[in-house]
């Protein structure tokens, strides 16, 4: 799931700027989850959001490769 939802965005762009992986973009003045496959689930967007609009989930949306299962 990664970044799960943005509810109550005030359009400040803090999340867009603070995302290291360019997952979030602005559309018509609001932040949208544009590239969820690239989310590294670091929560920086949530931590920078001034109005707690961002909800996270721990699941990755694409297959995960690890050294051993």
């Amino acid at each position: 799931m990664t970044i799960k939802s943005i509810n109550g965005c005030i359009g400040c762009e803090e999340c867009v700027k603070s995302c290291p992986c360019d997952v979030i973009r602005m559309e018509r003045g609001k932040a949208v989850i544009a590239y969820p496959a690239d989310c590294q689930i670091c929560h920086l967007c949530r931590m920078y959001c001034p109005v707690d609009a961002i909800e996270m989930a721990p699941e990755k949306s694409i297959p995960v490769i690890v050294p051993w299962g």
Partner: protein
Amino acid sequence: MTAPNDATAPTRRTFLALSGATAGLASLGMAAWAQNNVEIDVDAVTNTTHATDVLVIGGGMAGLFAAVKAHDAGAATMIVSKGRLGSSGLTPFGKGFFVFDPATETGTIGDFVAAVSRSALGTNNPVYTRQLAEHSLDRARELTDWGFFDQTLANRPFMRPITERAIPLLERVVITHLIKEDGRIAGAAGFRLDAEETVTIRAKSVILCTGAGGFKPNGFPLGDLTHDGSIMAYQIGAKITGKEWNDGHSTRSTNPAACYDGWGDMFERIPSTNGVEVHHDLGVDINYRAYMTGNPVAGGPGAEQPTDEIAGGPFVPEEFKNRAPPEGGGPGGKGGAPGGPPPGFSPGANVGGASAGMAIHKSEGLVPVDDRCASNIPGLYAAGDALGSHMAGGIYTQIGSSLAGSAVQGAIAGEAAAEYAGLADTPVIPDARIAEIVAEILAPLRREAGYGPAWVTQTLQGIMIPNFVLYIKKGTMMQAALAYVEELRDHHAPMLRAANMHELRLAFETRNMILSAEMKLRASLMRTESRCSHYRLDYPELDDENWRAWINIHQSADGSMQLEKQPFDAWPI
């Protein structure tokens, strides 16, 4: 794919349920070869030019100090970052800052350097180890003044000195090329994420503060770090070192990609300082245990680390054995025991490879030719994790040294680059060269069809991340992996497609990871011994007779990758 606002991004499960795995992956941009449904008018892309004395690339701890010190030394200075100051790379994650305070330490700096060298089995460069200790207190005091130790998020304190000095800052600009003219650095070029625009920056001196990198592994905040600086520098003739070392951070088998859930304490904590605490951590011990005994590894995160001996495995000096990991021995200090338990989170089976493709801090990157962070390209400097200073060696030694080392080296490089720029003529970059670079930057957008960068990255991960390739190494397996990587290098990297500026970034990151993988395999094949975080099943012993040496990599005139030894006690020739 764009999810509407106030809506929920699709989960993998719903994708799979709705459309089947293949269609789901294609929807997420994971298709392999496909038509390029380009979303922008490539012919309308404009080029913006800038000029400065010193260009700092990267907005982490090293970039901050490089810019501040270059400015304060009188150079016109500019920062460019593909992310945001203090909010990209590993900087938001590092919360422990090593300070050698003579007023409180019982030993001398010489004692400290000697302890690091004993733990690192000689792999550290003692000049950089000493420099870390000598300058750490001054850097910590400046960070204190800026409010760094008062809060969780680094952007605000980092912006204070930048705003006070009015240092120009270009954020969300991806640099893809370093420009060399007449044998010295002349600038850099890249593109904006938020506009259909390429960017060219003419500079007398460039400092790479581009951080480390990995293979976009799961469970660690490395998704934006792909060794961009090293690869750009390699392509203009710089020497690269330390590619055979590993960083042994682990994650949990449940939701392994959730780096916050595994290491969240590192993001949430307020930074703090710590004194001398030398360890021998973050090697491949847990990888060896998993390889030999099967999985899951007993005593995963949240549990005591296993203490029973298994035969063989990485050599640990007696002095550093059986030391309980400090309260949090993760990167940058406290916050999770090495190779194991992220703090404060529920236990679960352990999975290694959270930081796959990354080496121990500051062991991997540009080869310094002196003690001032200079590379072998005149005018090109590097600092922090982009500089292969071997400050701590090929194993994690001093707790908190990663963040402190970036601050110290950033400041040294900033002053050195300003001094160089003060004596250098303004470089001239011919228009034809700029046009050639812009064409290279935009090439993935112009391809009518090509390989998706996300698919190529996942293919690379499948080759490089398994435990039996780069962690528990064998010559035959690395040769096999190298054959795959050469295929990606020759047949996929030149055919990467991008539909927009986001994918253009992924295309260049993918290319960089492929070249980094080749370097890591070639260096690991060449090093026919085991030492620190480099462990070979077919050469399990230390070989002091032949291998008291680092491995430097450079591109030869015919484009091939060349490797050479550099003795531990020498600077490059």
